[in-house]
């Protein structure tokens, strides 16, 4: 019998001692007290606050689903429907736009992992180098990229000029190019980071016999990649996708705060930054809580869909 099985069997026996409940209480006390007061209760409170109007001073007043209606609702304006809070939709669009970097980053991470998976001397050095941006303080990285993206004397546009591109974009000052600039920065930060390491671990978990068998059948590099590596990595790919989407909906705060203040003209305001603005600049705590709840439901719904779809797409060995 396996160790796990033995343990399960033992669990089925009568309680070892009467004092176990009391011991458990003491073990749990510090964490569970903190958890219930500072995590669990605030989650419930967020739902409650989302049904109120509250300007931080005074007491919250119950307004039902007014906030949700104000965020998600539409009204008639002349002959057409207009969103009651057009900013919300705009910032949702920004948030989703920035998530376009996720698939690009995943492909690049996988390619890098394939390269780093070669048996080469000194490969650890490169792995460390590529990972570095991920552990850098995001605030410092944001400042650095603000400098690199400076339209006139920044490194990027100077480089583009030396390649003969005279009218390079103004990046963070351009409503059109600020989001692509954010994506570029995020790619630099993450391509060699966690996702690449997860892919590396996935690659190292693929049994060598599969490749040996393919060699005997005379399969080339592309076919091995297509028919062995890619399907065998599908759980890793799926995991990275789910985690990245969850993070993506909550992303963009530090970049917006440090580099653009959400501008120009709201072009880089994400849902996170919008919640921050509503709550801590305009002190509309109820409205901001409703936004947070909507964000939660978006993340939750998307994750549910992912799990459902994942069952069909992911190949588990």
């Amino acid at each position, binding site marked *: 019998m396996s160790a796990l099985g033995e343990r399960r069997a033992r669990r089925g026996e009568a309680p070892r001692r009467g004092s*176990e409940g009391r011991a458990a209480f003491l073990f749990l006390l*510090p964490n569970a007290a903190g958890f219930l007061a500072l995590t669990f209760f605030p989650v419930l*409170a*967020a739902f409650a606050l989302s049904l109120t109007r509250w300007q931080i001073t005074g007491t919250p007043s119950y307004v039902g689903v007014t906030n949700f209606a104000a965020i998600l609702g539409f009204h008639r304006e002349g002959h057409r429907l207009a969103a009651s809070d057009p900013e919300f939709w705009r910032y949702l669009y920004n948030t989703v736009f920035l998530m376009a970097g996720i698939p690009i980053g995943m492909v690049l991470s996988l390619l890098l992992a394939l390269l780093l998976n070669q048996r080469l001397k000194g490969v650890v050095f*490169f792995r460390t180098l590529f990972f570095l941006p991920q*552990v850098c303080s995001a605030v410092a990285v944001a400042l650095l990229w603000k400098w690199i993206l400076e339209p006139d004397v920044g490194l990027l546009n100077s480089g583009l000029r030396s390649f003969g591109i005279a009218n390079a974009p103004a990046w963070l000052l351009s409503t059109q190019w600020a989001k692509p600039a954010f994506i570029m920065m995020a790619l630099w930060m993450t391509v060699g980071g966690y996702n690449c390491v997860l892919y590396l671990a996935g690659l190292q978990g693929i049994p060598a016999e599969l490749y040996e068998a393919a060699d005997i059948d005379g399969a080339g590099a592309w076919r091995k990649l297509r028919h062995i590596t890619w399907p065998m990595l599908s759980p890793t790919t799926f995991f990275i996708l789910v985690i990245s989407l969850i993070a993506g909906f909550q992303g963009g705060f530090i970049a917006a705060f440090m580099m653009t203040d959400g501008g120009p003209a709201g072009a880089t305001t994400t849902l996170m930054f919008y919640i921050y603005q509503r709550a801590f600049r305009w002190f509309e705590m109820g409205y*901001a809580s409703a936004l947070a709840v909507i*964000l939660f439901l978006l993340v939750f719904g998307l994750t549910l869909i992912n799990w459902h779809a994942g069952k069909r797409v992911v190949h588990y060995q």
Partner: protein
Amino acid sequence: MRMRTAIANTGAYLLLVALGFTMSLPLLWMFSTSLKDPNAVGLYTPRWIPTRPEMVVVGGKEYRAGVLNERGRRTTVAIVAARLGRVVIIDPRGRKRAVPQSLVVPKEALHFEWSNYAHAWKALRVERGFLGLLRNADGFLVFYLNSMLVTILVTAGQLVTCSLAAFAFARLRFRARDALFLAYLATLMVPAVVTMIPLFAMMRVARLTDTYWALILPGLFSAYGTFLLRQFFMTVPTELEDAARIDGAGPFSIYWRIIMPLSKPALATLGTFVFLHTWNEFLWPLIVIDDLGKKTLPIGLAHFQGPYLTEWHLLMAASVIVMFPVLIVFVIGQRYFVRGIALSGLKA
């Protein structure tokens, strides 16, 4: 076959070096900018190597040095003045004369402006900082100490509370265990922004905003850490514990003498992630801390950006100051860190 492997390896190396170089450029640029003389920052044609104008002294007066290229001969000269496409120079023989500007190139000398770091370090003054112990102190010294205090307490606290709770979930039987564990699991799905507003309100009611408590308390407990350690504890074989129990060991001594020593890798992984997460945490400190003396490094740096908005040499020096310790910790511990991610599939 061997030949082919050698070619493939060389190709892979070339690719790695090219990619590695490209990826490093932003960090090198940060470092380069942080060491530049203010006048060498923001040039239309940027230079990678920090330089500053070289000076020469002629007759007790200091002039800008230049290289004169006359009939194929290069000589160092002093530049006195420049006007209308001509430059007035003093040549090595001490003669003063005017030559066409195109013949003279101002000389630049390698120069690392290390004082940028001291300047950035001291630029913000804190009247009372770091638990009120420091008066009229350097801004970044205070931010550093605050960050260290908060990060160490949170990391240690979380390791203690999460391991205790994880032990109870993994090894003890009690009423409502599964219900409580489910509550822990459920909150893992909830984005941090959802709890942020109520938590801020609670801190306000308890009059804890703008105190170290606000920075430390919410970090001491985590559903995530409890879950991670509980999963690891479940994989520890029970044989040793059974032997200890027969010898009369209670739950606490089993936790402390058996489970904890066997779980060092999991504890180290959690510790590393909590450390990095807390050190780099931005949004929560930003909203609960207003007093400059209690700011941590990330929000200290954000504050620093305000008055020094375009002084890139100082901003980059400050960024290096903020990044450096984490980079060192990572480079030293990277093997372990990377293994931690691979094992647990987790992110900070």
